């Protein structure tokens, strides 16, 4: 009897996961492996019509990527977004979470919803809105800065400012997400820890420094890794707001991959770009886990 039940469950179990596994296998795992293979070929626009014209090139694409100055510029721009935008976004999320979670706040749910609102909005739509807010003459931002005596900045037209403008917009768009995760982390800190610290004479800052921050360590690791992985994939913001310019100052690795692959149809080259980015993302994840693990 028991054996019959088990074999029935075994069959049902596989039948239940089969559709999902088939779809994920066909539309995710197979393309990922094929992408690796593609990155060793010179697959281009001619090969789309006749795949047999593609030739195996070994590591040639990778050599070309690493010797292309535009790749290094795109990588630098992407790193700027990851290294400046990431921490700025996490810090904003933490501050928002601390404010919303403070004990005496009226309507915490309302503030939480407002801060979260940009997360659900459509990126392309709000990127267009921000393009107008950043307008050097008519934009709200320069007008507001002018009111406190700051000269107008050509946010998206000046190569020194364009990436920072995109960072600012992305922080606005995304901070609500991590804020929610920090709120959950703050709620899980036992109240006794604060009371014990209070009895020991710890002030507000000391309690934050010695109770709140250490208790949030796992949250920081999760938020840090997820934010970094997301930021490495920056694409739609520069595509819509600057088309990668001015002077390629906002061209990211994914934008470069999109242009190589789907504008010039150099798919072998684009695939190798994707894998270079993937390896960098893996390394970044390992480094963060190591760094944050040490601190604990």
């Amino acid at each position: 009897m028991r054996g019959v039940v088990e074999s029935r469950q075994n069959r049902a179990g596989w039948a239940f996961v089969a559709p999902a596994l088939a779809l994920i296998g066909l539309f995710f795992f197979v393309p990922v492996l094929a992408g690796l293979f593609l990155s060793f070929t010179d697959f281009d626009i001619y090969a789309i019509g006749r795949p047999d014209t593609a030739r195996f090139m070994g590591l040639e694409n990778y050599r070309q990527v690493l010797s292309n100055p535009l790749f290094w510029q795109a990588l630098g721009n992407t790193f700027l977004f990851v290294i400046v935008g990431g921490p700025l976004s996490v810090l904003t999320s933490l501050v928002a979470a601390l404010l919303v979670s403070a004990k005496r706040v009226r309507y915490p749910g309302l503030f939480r919803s407002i801060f979260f609102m940009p997360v659900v909005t459509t990126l392309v739509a709000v990127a267009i809105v921000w393009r107008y807010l950043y307008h050097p003459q008519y934009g709200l931002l320069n007008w507001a800065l002018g009111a406190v005596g700051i000269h107008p900045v050509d946010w998206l037209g000046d190569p020194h400012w364009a990436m920072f403008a995109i960072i600012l917009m992305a922080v606005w768009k995304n901070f609500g997400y991590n804020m929610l995760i920090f709120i959950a982390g703050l709620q899980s800190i036992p109240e006794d820890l604060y009371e014990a610290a209070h009895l020991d004479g710890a002030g507000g800052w000391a309690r934050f420094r010695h109770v709140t921050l250490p208790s949030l360590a796992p949250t920081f690791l999760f938020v840090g890794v997820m934010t970094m992985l997301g930021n490495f994939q920056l694409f739609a913001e520069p595509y819509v707001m600057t088309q990668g310019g001015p002077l390629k100052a906002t061209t990211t690795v994914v934008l470069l991959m999109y242009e190589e692959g789907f504008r010039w149809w150099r798919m072998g080259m684009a695939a190798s770009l994707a894998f270079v980015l993937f390896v960098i993302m893996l390394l970044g994840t390992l480094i963060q886990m190591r760094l944050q693990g040490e601190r604990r």
Partner: protein
Amino acid sequence: MRRRALLSTLVLHAALVLGALVTLTPLLWMVSASFMSPGESNSFPPRLLPRIPTLQNYVDLFTRLNLARYLLNSTVVAVSATLISLVINSMAGYAFAKLRFVGRERVFHVLLAALVIPGQVGMLPLFLLLKSMGLVNTMAGVVVPFMAGIFGIFMIRQYAMSIPDDLLDAARVDGADEYRIFWNIVIPVIQPILVTLAVFTFLSAWNDFMWPLIVLSDDAKYTLPVALASLSGEHVQDTGLMMAGSVLTVLPVVVLFIVLQRAYIRGVMMGSVKG
């Protein structure tokens, strides 16, 4: 002491209100500018409110431009992605949680490990694959990546773990087969997480940009974000028109979020526990 507490409460609320204003300003300005007459939003100093509110921009979107079409396309994509992913992911998530089958743990761990692979890595071959299947430049091609998702399966599994085994075994003793158990017993129990998954999938399919941009080449098949990005090139000067288009794109998802925010927030929190 009393006065210090009062003061700090005031400062706290001032910071919150200021933060809320800064957060809402771009969205409020978008709505306001969508009701401005042509040229009104390109003036200095910038206008915060329209002199005489007009619906002209919205009328133009539906008459001169093809907005109704894009709205329909986006709706078709998001609704079908949601329905398909609900069925596929809930079956798989439940099986990973509650049905004992050979290799279950190993398969599940492979799936979890694959979460670190960014979607772009497979995008180029996926495009070629869909091209060979005749799905490029179709709605179905846009929906394909949303049909089954590792994160969705994970979410359902976490929730389904709490279903008591006795409940399922009792049904088995009564002679119900596994499919009947799933539809009649499991689905009602996991209904809250199904709502969460539905909101997640709908929002990400509605808001997605890169994949539909790659797959769709024909203007009449564009989803709203792709159409908006392409229009914003041609109509740069038409601020009011672009803002009206943005409002119509953002409005459905913001309304959906406000109505179902409890379910949505639960999903975000569940995402964080896997860390």
